[in-house]
């Protein structure tokens, strides 16, 4: 009806872009200030740990907690690793490190596989008591485990393997099972039953379907479960102290012994170095797998 006006022509010709929002508004500044202060609050202890671990004994004695070391050196780390005295032996915490590795690796593999197996069986081979069993297992996840420590100790002693490598391994596997099972069950419940049926027609039995089909399919969940168990078992102190026995004390227990049972002067710098060494493994795991970790937790949360 009307001829196009001048402004119509211009808007048709030029590309329109979304107007830019101002980057620094008062609200944003407030948010950033808050976030930065919170980050600083959580980073401060780490800063103190690192700085102290790099100081010489005399510098530590000056008690300037936040000061940067005048002569940063890694001697304390070497001490903590190989020569610091725990009770009467002076081998550092390297023994604890290897104990932890020896415990964490097979226990993680075993408990993750057990969880996957449970989840698979519960989701696909619907046995009559499956749901009740699952309910009982979930109940187990909510009972504080401290309650079960004394009965477990008594039971292990009766069986004759209290304070052994096997005792601590069994304990971690059993206490990890509810969460592992829940993770995998929720993952497998979302897998269409038809896939399982197709495999049944193709002749797959219980183990073949699990190993060749369901386990490779659950790779993201396997990674998440491994991270959870690896950090969980590495960080554990209580079970290690109670069930492992002197020869198998994991790194966390050794660290505590190092910090709390040295004679004479406290060498804070060595303590700090030992602490950093102990937490290095879970820290590294988080750093290199954070993406997977978040993904797995989110997947579990939505489907659970």
């Amino acid at each position, binding site marked *: 009806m009307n001829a196009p006006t001048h402004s119509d022509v211009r808007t048709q010709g030029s590309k329109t872009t979304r107007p830019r929002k101002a980057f620094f508004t008062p609200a944003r500044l407030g948010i950033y200030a808050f976030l930065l202060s919170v980050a600083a609050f959580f980073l401060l202890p780490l800063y103190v740990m690192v700085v102290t671990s790099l100081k010489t004994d005399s510098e530590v004695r000056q008690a300037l907690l936040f000061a940067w070391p005048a002569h940063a050196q890694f001697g304390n780390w070497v001490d903590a690793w190989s020569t610091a005295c725990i009770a009467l032996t002076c081998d550092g915490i390297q023994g604890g490190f290897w104990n932890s590795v020896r415990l964490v690796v097979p226990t993680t593999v075993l408990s993750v596989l057990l969880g996957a197996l449970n989840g698979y069986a519960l989701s696909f081979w619907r046995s009559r008591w499956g749901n009740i069993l699952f309910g009982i297992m979930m109940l187990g996840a909510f009972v504080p485990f401290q309650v079960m420590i004394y009965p477990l100790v008594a039971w292990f002693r009766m069986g004759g393997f209290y304070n052994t490598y096997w005792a601590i391994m069994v304990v971690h596997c059993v206490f990890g099972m509810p969460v592992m099972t829940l993770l995998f069950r929720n993952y497998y419940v979302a897998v269409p039953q038809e896939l399982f*049926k197709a*495999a049944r027609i*193709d002749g*797959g039995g219980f183990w*073949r379907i699990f190993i060749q089909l369901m386990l490779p399919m659950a790779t993201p969940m396997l990674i998440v479960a491994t991270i959870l168990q690896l950090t969980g078992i590495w960080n554990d102190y209580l079970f290690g102290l109670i069930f492992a026995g002197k020869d198998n004390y994991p790194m966390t227990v050794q660290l505590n012994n190092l910090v709390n049972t040295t004679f004479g002067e406290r060498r804070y710098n060595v303590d700090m170095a030992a602490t950093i060494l102990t937490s290095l493994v879970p820290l590294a795991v988080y750093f290199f797998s954070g993406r997977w970790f978040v993904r797995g937790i989110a997947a579990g949360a939505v489907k659970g």
Partner: protein
Amino acid sequence: MASVNIQNLDIVLGGVDILKSMNLHVQDGEFLVLLGPSGCGKSTLLHTIAGFNEVTDGSICIGEKDVTWADPKDRDIGMVFQSYALYPTMNVERNMSFGLRVAGVPKADIARRVERAAAMLHLKELLNRRPSQLSGGQRQRVAIGRALVRDAKVFLFDEPLSNLDAKLRAELRRELKQLHKDLGTTMVYVTHDQVEAMTMASRIAVMRGGKIQQIDTPAAIYARPKNMFVAGFLGSPSMNFIEGTLQALDGVWHFQSPALRVDLRHYPLQQTPLAGQRCVLGVRPESIKLCAPADSQQGSAQVALIEPMGASQIVWLNLQGQQVSVQLEAQATPELERSVGLQMAVAELSLFDAESQERL
């Protein structure tokens, strides 16, 4: 190849009767389609044949073998699912050969059979792809291929085309029919799509509420539906139902409604009706011709709406307040709001009892 014989089958799932004393005989080499709305038990029946449901009572035989309690893998069946159900971590070749590898078939034999199935289904270039790298149609072809390589005696299809778009569905439908023609294997196919049933089936079993309502060739079911449910389920647009009564005029049975009077001299009545019996006249859209109102002995109506379909058109008539659809060729030029006369081909009509809804 084998027949499937189901006798007095009862299936109770979670305390609910899904199937009740079901009898079904699928002939050797037949393409049987189980057709029905969702929840009619057709999928349950198929999954029971496959061995995934506990049989409450009755028996299932495939060929000569009683498989009522056999494991799915021992039934000589191949199955294709709606969701494709491909193994996501394996490539196409390994997906198809999984069953053979489980069975310990020699490698050379596996390669030959996969090769043959891949050639049949145009999958040769895709053998190294993962399922996630395939389109829906390709995925379903792989699933069909996986069933093919097993050299099964009976193929079971559980709504295999329902997840595909219309064009692909028509394409795969044709391929499936071709496949059945080439192989001659017994196939049981579950769907709720009446077009799939009509186009592919040797016989259709229409199901409702766990019971088979009618089982016959597509043409017979379409032309002589046993009851109003079957009549309404097949055909698009669906059959028109017009209520009325049966009257004897001059010794000849007539269908009488306020707007229509149809001479039933040439209608094959199955039993002698009662005068004044309430009934429903079923007439398919293509069985009605239009003429000038004065030329019709049956009745007249007004043109209310026209839906052009390309090759044909659907004309909606207003028959004293009731919508009646008529299918005309594209060249016809009905005018809106005009009055038209109806001419129904009596031999193509269906009459149902208003109470029992069964065919008269």
